[in-house]
């Protein structure tokens, strides 16, 4: 039987928990595939900077120099604006809803359709679950507190905040701490309690807001070169699909467990105040988000197609969760 030796690049730095190392991470995916295929498909993993810079994985997979890349699809928003829908949508779907859409609501078919002309395909391979709004040096009590607030916030959410008067600052991960600590920025968004604690953000700001309206879930993307994919026999294809699905579940459960412990530590030992954003602030954010998503859809036919499909699924799914999950969370749990 033919053996395959592939390479996978990653948009995240070596030893980043969840994104590189740990249960359900991309390196874990490579181990799982090697074990399940009894070594017939081995994938050598390269973290960001080892072979190529963080955000060059898409092009490398596209021209087949490496067979796989691990990242988030919204990093490719400059190449394919519609790609961001396959990572997260502000006020969109949580972990359950997103996976329901991807696996059974036509999401993965749309993803493949979007990527096919570029010779790549994608599979979901992980999820952080709901993220946090971010770290603020001062409490947010009303919508006016966003005026002239300097915040590190990349992507679509940055555009929403900018519409509320936030001054958006782009900063690489390593500079968030010094900038927030000295007040160059007043607020910063990163991931969730476990990852944020690792950057030491609790030493720079004490107000930790939730819930992550901008990222109600966040999918890790496994990008695969299509020619390489077609060259795999069916059993290896199945192994890749199953391993990606296993990592999707395992990474999420790992985040759930670790975020719980990290949040407890932040609140009890680091004087962090975890708060929910005021309701009127959230309402205004949602208003602007809807408007910006609609603008994006109007500007690009591919985005419109994905947007409409996503929203149609969400509308239906919301009705179901309104009588299933929501009452459970609101009145039965805790």
């Amino acid at each position: 039987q033919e053996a395959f030796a592939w390479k996978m690049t990653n948009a995240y730095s070596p030893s980043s928990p969840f994104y590189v190392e740990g249960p359900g991470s991309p390196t874990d995916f490579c181990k799982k595939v090697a074990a399940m295929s009894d070594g017939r498909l081995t994938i050598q993993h390269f973290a960001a900077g080892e072979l190529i810079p963080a955000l060059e994985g898409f092009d490398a997979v596209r021209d087949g120099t490496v067979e796989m890349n691990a990242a988030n699809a919204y990093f490719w928003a400059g190449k394919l604006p519609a790609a961001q829908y396959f990572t997260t949508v502000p006020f969109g779907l949580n972990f359950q809803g997103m996976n329901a859409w991807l696996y059974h609501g036509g999401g993965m078919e749309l993803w493949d359709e979007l990527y096919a002309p570029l010779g790549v395909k994608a599979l979901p391979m992980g999820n952080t679950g709901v993220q946090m709004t971010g770290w603020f040096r001062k409490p947010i009590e009303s919508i006016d507190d966003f005026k002239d607030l300097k915040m590190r916030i990349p992507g679509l959410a940055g555009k929403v905040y900018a519409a509320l008067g936030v001054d958006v600052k782009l900063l690489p991960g390593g500079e968030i701490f010094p900038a927030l600590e000295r007040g160059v920025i007043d607020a910063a968004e990163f991931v969730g309690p476990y990852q944020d604690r690792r950057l030491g953000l609790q030493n720079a700001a004490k107000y930790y807001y939730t819930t992550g309206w901008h990222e109600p879930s966040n999918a890790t993307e496994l990008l695969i070169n299509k020619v390489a994919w077609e060259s795999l026999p069916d059993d290896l294809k199945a192994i890749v699909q199953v391993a990606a699905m296993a990592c999707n579940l395992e990474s999420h459960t790992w985040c759930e467990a670790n975020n719980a412990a990290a949040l407890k530590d932040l609140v009890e030992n680091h004087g962090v105040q975890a708060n929910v954003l005021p309701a009127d602030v959230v309402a205004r954010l949602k208003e602007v988000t809807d408007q910006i998503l609609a603008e994006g859809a109007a500007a690009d036919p591919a985005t419109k197609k994905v947007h409409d499909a996503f929203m149609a699924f969400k509308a239906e799914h919301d009705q179901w969760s309104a009588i299933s999950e929501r009452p459970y969370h609101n009145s039965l749990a805790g």
Partner: protein
Amino acid sequence: MARLLLSLADGASSAVRIIGQIAAWSGLVLVLTVAFNVLARYFFSYGSVALQEAEWHLMGVGALFGMSYGLNQGAEVRVDVVYDRLPRRLQVFVEVLGNLLLFAVAVLIAWLSARYVQSSYAINEGSPDPGGLPMRYLLKAAMPVAFVLLAVQALARAAADIGRHLAPIPVAPSGEAESLI
């Protein structure tokens, strides 16, 4: 023959020099852009994603076009522990060899990066951040252009060395007349 080689080399070097002298101003624009972004944010809470991206766009263009201009101005770094003790003829040989190797490398990278630009152009790549600078392929296109310039400059230097070696008659030093760019 030697004269032809020398005048060709001189023409190519002059072209590289003039392009470099224009590109050099990107450094001042960079200083002003970053300073403006800092001060406008601090004093007026004004920030623009496009202007923040302009910072590393300017650095990228400057770094790439700086290579050929740096070579033109003799700014390449070498270890001279042995080189300084070599006889003049051998030094010329090392010099010509170095420039021919650089020419080959620059052509190769220019060719590799042309493909890289092509795949960016094919999908009209822009910034992944809303409000960022569009047409990222233009920035990427600076790579093949800069490496072609580098190849031209490397070849010009090799030609000049060979030309001077073939015709060791004193040639008036060129390139001292600075233009006012």
